[in-house]
Structure formats: structure tokens, C-alpha cells
């Protein structure tokens, strides 16, 4: 699996992985057998953090 973008909080980074897993389990984007693309991950990161613009 590719690295995920670094988050400000280490615990948030762990939580974000759980969030991505929840998204996949619920069929929210991507395919069942593939990981999200980097762009898809960034989209979910925006959802997760509520930040619109990621640097």
C-alpha cells in the first residue's frame, strides 16, 4: 500500500486509516479489490479533516 499523506497528529493518521477502511467497507469509492488512488485518498482526507485545501 502506498504511504498516506502525513497528518499533523500521529493518532489522527491511525484514525484516518480506519476511516479509509470504513469507506471501502461501505463501498464508498474505489473498487473492492483495489486501494484508493492518491487523489481519492486526498479527497477522503479533505472529508475527514474538514480542510478544503491541502498543502
Amino acid at each position, binding site marked *: 500500500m502506498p504511504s498516506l499523506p502525513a497528518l499533523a497528529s500521529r493518532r489522527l493518521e491511525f484514525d484516518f*486509516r*480506519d476511516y479509509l477502511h470504513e469507506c471501502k467497507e461501505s463501498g464508498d469509492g474505489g473498487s473492492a479489490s483495489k486501494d484508493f488512488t492518491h487523489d481519492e485518498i486526498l479527497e477522503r482526507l479533505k472529508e475527514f479533516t474538514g480542510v478544503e485545501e491541502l498543502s
Partner: protein
Amino acid sequence: MNAVESNVEHVVEPEFFAKLQEQANMLVGQPYLFSRVTYGDELTIHFGTERAHTHSKLAAKVRGSHVLSLRGSAWMLRSGVNPVIIGCGITPSMSFNPKPFNVTALESGAHIRPGARVSKAIPIPVLPMKSVGLIVDLDDGSAFTILPTPASGNDEDGLEEPCDWELLAPHEWLRVGPGATMKTDPV
């Protein structure tokens, strides 16, 4: 399989192991809580005390105060309460036919005594990758073995290769690998 050898001090410095052992000792005495799969089919093993997720989107989930995340590493659990071995990515060299490896069996919680505590957490050198695995013994006789696997090499986004395994504790974040490297950061 001859991937694990104990006498590889020429590959991994003893001082490195001493330092890593000190970090791994954060797990000793912590009770096992549960295991679950997270994104990328990575296994996370939760120890310590249950904590609620702080994020609203994960309100239904709890996690342990100490989370061992295996990233892309192979793993195996030898149950101390049932005659089974389960895992992923490891083929044990045994004369009997082990149960099929699957995560569901581990997630069910049936193979570790509730409340079993970590009695030892021992970093181990792993050849030929010059990397570092981990053995976690529980006081019910169960034991996890974690062995790093070769890098995928398909990180098309140019991000750095993830670590082999990591431990998130209340005040510290330990990352081990890739290779014989470790990094600690405050949480």
C-alpha cells in the same frame, strides 16, 4: 524457511537492538484487547485500555491505548488457548496441516484469552532483508510473530516507503523499518 536467524550482529548493530528493545518494552504488561484489519488490509493489534475515537466519523469504533500496526508485514499467531496457528503471509514449516490462514479467525477473539497480558516483546533480526521483526508473547501462551516483507516498489506517487511495523503508545510513536531503522516521535 530460514528467514529468521539470531546471530546477525554483523547485519544489525547490537546497540540498535538494545534501543529498540527498550521501546518495545512499552507493550509489556499491557492486556490484549482485540485485533482488526484497517485500510490496505493491514492488521492492527490493540492493547492497553479502550479509548473512544475522537473523530465523529469513527464514533462507533474504539481503539486500544497501545496500537501495534503491522503495515505490510507478514504475521502469525500461535494461539495459547486453541491448537491453531493463524496468520497472513507466512507458511510455517510443519509436519501437520495448519488451519487456513485468515484474519477473521483472529478478529473473532476466540484464540486469545480475554485479558491476556504481554509478557515479552522481542525485536528479532530478519534475513535476508536486513530488517527487524517482532515477537509478542502473551501470558496465556499465545504469541504473535511479525516478519517484514520485501518492499512493494510500486509507490507510484513518489512517497516514501512505509515502515514495516509501528507502535502507537499514549506518548510515543515508534516506527521500525524499512530495513534496520527505527524512528520515534512524540504523539
